[in-house]
């Protein structure tokens, strides 16, 4: 138990470190440095930056030092919560991101919940009624879900929403709540808008999970203990739910590790299509205008968020199913 925990924490720290290095590299990749682009941005907006000021900025950000020193300096700033300035917005990166990160988490978590809520009953149904019409229908939908990139699904739904209902089905808030401060009514408005993005993001994962659930449950159902339970006169529902389903649930536990990064990843592009106020559109804009501090910070935050999310869910699942730690 303890060994698994230490290993898990170690791995999480390692991942966060790797993500920070990658984010730093991405910030560094474009030609020029932060100060030269800062000066350019300042000059474009009419104000000037003196040579002395530029020099001070360079020293403050350690741009005259070798690259690894710069990385350490940047990390120090980041750990203090200073992510630098957004060139394009002329405001600190943290202000620009605002509650978009929270909304990304909400949308991704909703997609994971959606995946589970749908895959569990359908998986059980498909296994228990193997080769029934329902099984074939779900298998077919599952294959389509597997083969359709989430952004394409979003496009198609947008099109259908427009032609059939003549409405724009994108967005996470109704227009009247879009710019309001947080309130109970605004949260409720968001919850009403959540199912569609959750469906779009969760469909591929759901399809995979249904297939795994179905296969596992079919294996379990053929085992003698199921026959014994049935012979002893247990009602069919109990026979299935009490033992085989619990054993077959294992993939739900073990897939969360890759499901979450996958969904967060997908949310970036889907947000563009459905115009959700997550970090996705912001990241794209930042990358296209080479606003690298903003872009790097978003990538760093997304990565760290994924690692924390995966870590917490792993702990939860270990608590639910003690056998998982043995698999490592």
């Amino acid at each position, binding site marked *: 138990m303890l060994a698994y925990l230490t290993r898990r924490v170690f*791995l999480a720290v*390692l*991942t966060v470190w*790797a*993500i920070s290095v*990658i*984010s730093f590299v*991405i910030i560094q*990749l*474009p*030609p020029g440095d932060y100060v030269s682009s800062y000066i350019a941005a300042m000059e474009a907006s009419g104000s000037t930056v003196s040579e002395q000021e530029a020099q001070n900025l360079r020293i403050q950000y350690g741009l005259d030092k070798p690259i690894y020193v710069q990385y350490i300096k940047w990390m120090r700033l980041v750990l203090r919560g200073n992510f630098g300035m957004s060139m394009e917005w002329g405001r600190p990166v943290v202000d620009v991101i605002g509650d978009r990160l929270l909304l990304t988490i909400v949308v991704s978590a909703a997609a994971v919940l959606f995946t589970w809520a749908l895959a569990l009953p359908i998986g059980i149904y498909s296994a228990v009624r193997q080769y029934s019409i329902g099984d074939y229908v779900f298998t077919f939908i599952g*294959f*389509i879900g*597997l*083969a*359709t*990139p989430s*952004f*394409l699904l979003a*496009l*198609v739904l*947008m*099109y259908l929403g*427009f*032609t059939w209902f003549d409405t*724009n089905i*994108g967005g996470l808030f109704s227009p009247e709540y879009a710019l309001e401060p947080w309130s109970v009514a605004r949260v409720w408005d968001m919850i009403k808008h959540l199912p569609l993005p959750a469906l779009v993001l969760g469909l591929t994962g759901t399809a995979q999970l249904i297939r795994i659930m179905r296969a596992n449950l079919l294996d379990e159902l053929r085992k003698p203990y199921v026959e014994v339970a049935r012979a002893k006169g247990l009602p069919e529902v109990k026979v299935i739910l009490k033992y085989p389903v619990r054993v077959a649930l294992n993939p739900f536990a073990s897939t969360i*590790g*890759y499901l979450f*990064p*996958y969904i*967060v*990843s*997908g949310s*970036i*592009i889907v947000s*563009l*299509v459905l115009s959700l106020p997550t970090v996705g559109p912001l*990241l*794209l804009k930042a*990358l*296209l205008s*080479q606003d690298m501090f903003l*872009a*790097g910070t*978003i*990538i760093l935050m*997304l*990565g760290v968020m*994924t*690692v924390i999310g*995966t870590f917490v869910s792993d702990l939860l699942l270990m608590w639910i199913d003690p056998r998982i730690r043995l698999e490592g």
Partner: protein
Amino acid sequence: MAETRIARDEAATTVTEERIWVASQWQLIWWRFRKHRLAMAGGIVILLSYLVVIGADFLAYSDPTASDANRSLMPPQAIRWLDDGRLSPHVLALKGRRDPVTLKRVYEPDPNKKLPVILFAQGFEYKFLGVIPTDRHLIGVEGARAEESIFILGTDQLGRDLWSRLMRGTQTSLTIGLVGVALSLFLGILFGGLSGSYGGVLDTVIQRIIEVLRSIPTIPLWMGLGAAMPRDWEITKVYLAITVILSLIGWTELARVVRGRFLSLRQEDFVLAAEFVGCSRMRIIFRHMVPSFLSHIIAATTLALPAMIISETSLSFVGLGLRPPAISWGVLLQNAQTIQALALSPWLLIPAIPVIIAILALNFLGDGLRDAADPYEV
């Protein structure tokens, strides 16, 4: 009577059994694969798709880059097969004008001006397979330039023919997946092989690296790397850079498969025997181990292809992958990004169909190959 039949049946089963006993591994794989009907269908679709890749310019009838504002956003045009009850495929000439109310360009067919559609028509010049210069295309229009008269899937904002662009896009998207997978395969076999055959610290390190890479959300990472590519790079350079970026994560899954195979094969008697006879490590790996897990590798590679294609399409779709003048599925779908475009010109969404079909077919094919990969397992 009954006895002879039983005897005959027995003879028949022994004949099949004998066939199975003497069949080679690949024969067994083929027999098992053949039973998987969806996989067979998938295989045929993939084969056809790659034929499109080879003959993209032959199947296109218009120059995919020829633009003309006068043909902007034409809806798909029907080919009329019959003329006065006789089979004579033709299209009607279209006349464009601007609607005075909506200011949208509308196109009206002229029923008196019939343009016959012919096979092996002359069109824009290209090099077949990159070497043979020719100007023949599968279809074309008699007595008119194809660019100005036939639009079976409509045109985009710049008046470029969607069908011809789709052919070129298929070529790009399917080959980029293949190149990316090849690169991932190389890295996967290298690191998976090292991991599986040496074990110990090296194995632990490589496994941790894989776990770290897999827990990073890939799209933001790719977007960051894609944006770092200088804007003035030429198409081929961007193309190569994209494949490298995609392979950066893609190899991890293949490395896992290779490592797993190495670990399970290490225990096998024939590997032990080869070791006792004194074969060198390289000989054991390439002469004895690789042939027995090659089929698994092929299956894993097929299953890795769809992910590559989706990634390229997604990246190009947001404008951080391939960019015009390069044409790929993602680049084509970029035109259908906004609700306005979808509402006014839904045919721009057509490139989504080949994406879904190709990914579906590759998944079926890969599943079938995976099931058939180990013919000795019952």
